[in-house]
């Protein structure tokens, strides 16, 4: 049986698409940024020598790395209000889920990046008389960040794709916009195909950038 493709339906709601694009980008950028900050703090805490600091952070990181993001978002939206007795809006619940998810993965990237720097570098910096903060800022982080860039770009790409899960709590991102249009037009093939191409157009340049950063070896 021939299927009659009709891509014109995709262009039915340009205003909605623009909103969806903006929502997706804002969530991707904001939750990636906030997640990175959270990850930096948690990554450094994971390296501390105090078990009292390490254990809770470790628990958080492993929990969020080992459970589906979809459940985390749904849980923040439906269960958290029950637990704390306070309704939080969908946009906040979703943002919280995405941020904590990104934070957990970045914490691990920071931790792994920092401990990948050879012992000798720490010793040489200490031998000069550097304080722990100076040692981090001047010697360890500049080298570690270079090694962290590829995994971070990778994680950011995933993060942008993961914003599509926002649609389950009715945040009007790209995915949600598409789903609405599908229910209006009954043209899921055209709409989801177009959506995939759209995500690809956004993310492909980012992937290229990551590749070129990986190949750069200037110090």
């Amino acid at each position, binding site marked *: 049986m021939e299927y009659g493709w009709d891509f014109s339906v995709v262009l039915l709601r340009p205003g909605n698409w623009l909103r969806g694009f903006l929502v997706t980008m804002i969530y991707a950028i904001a939750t990636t940024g906030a997640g990175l900050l959270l990850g930096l703090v948690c990554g450094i805490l994971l390296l501390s020598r105090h078990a009292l600091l390490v254990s809770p952070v470790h628990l958080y990181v492993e929990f969020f790395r080992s459970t589906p993001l979809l459940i985390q978002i749904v849980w923040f939206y439906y269960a958290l209000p029950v637990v704390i007795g306070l309704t939080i809006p969908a946009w906040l619940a979703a943002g919280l889920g995405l941020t904590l998810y990104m934070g957990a993965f970045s914490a691990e990237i920071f931790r792994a990046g920092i401990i990948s720097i050879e012992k000798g570098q720490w*010793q*040489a910096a200490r031998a*000069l008389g550097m304080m722990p903060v100076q040692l981090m800022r001047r010697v360890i982080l500049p*080298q570690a960040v270079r090694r962290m860039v590829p995994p971070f770009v990778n994680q950011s790409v995933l993060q942008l794709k993961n914003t599509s899960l926002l649609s389950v709590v009715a945040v009007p991102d790209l995915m949600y916009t598409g789903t609405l249009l599908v229910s209006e037009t009954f043209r899921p093939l055209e709409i989801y195909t177009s959506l995939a191409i759209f995500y690809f157009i956004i993310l492909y340049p980012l992937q290229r950038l990551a590749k070129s950063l990986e190949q750069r070896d200037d110090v």
Partner: protein
Amino acid sequence: MSDASPMIEVRDLAKSYGRVEAVRGVSLAVRRGEAQFVIGPSGCGKSTFLRCINLLEEPSAGWLRVGDTVIEFGRHRLSAREQARHRSQVGMVFQQFHLFPHMTALQNVMEGLVTVKRTDRHEARRQAELLLEKVGLADKRDVYPRHLSGGQAQRVAIARALAMQPRVLLLDEVTSALDPELVGEVLEVIRQLTLEGMTMILVTHEMAFAREVAHRIVFMDEGQIVESGTAEEVLDHPRNPRLQSFLRRFRR
């Protein structure tokens, strides 16, 4: 502090890891301008001892004086600030150089001055350039460490340590990782330092070099100083049987 009193003095220094005692009560005094060599079989605790002096390993017990700063170990843990202050006065050069790979030779030498001593950048650059010149690497100032030969890297590392104007310089087997043809250029720099009166403690296997420039040599075995004296006393007239057999193995 008079010239006669030692620049650095160590008493009953001990370092243990759990039940393993790496350094077992070492006492040592190095006078200003003296180059004191520490020799001994591998695993005898000589490197650990050296690393205790600048607190890269925290000694379990003992007493240490550098200049007029005294540190007593085993009572309380030193704060990060106390450790940093002590280390800034004790230079260290490592077997594997450990230059900062993201900085040029010049930046490596400037780093301690700028970050730790808070020296003005212009002044730090001036001093670093002089030091690179001194170790014969003025033309490598803008080169990153991975483009330096082992001998050049080690000379930059020596300049980096000297930039802090340490009271004493610790050198931990600084030629052991070098190709044989590159050892000479590093020893030449150290020889120059002995002539200039730099106070140094060197852990080394370069016996010929020790014989030539050491003011004193101590022989360590099983975490203790077994014998010490002038190069002639220790190398030519060893009394302790363990030192005798160590030197015999060395000559073969």
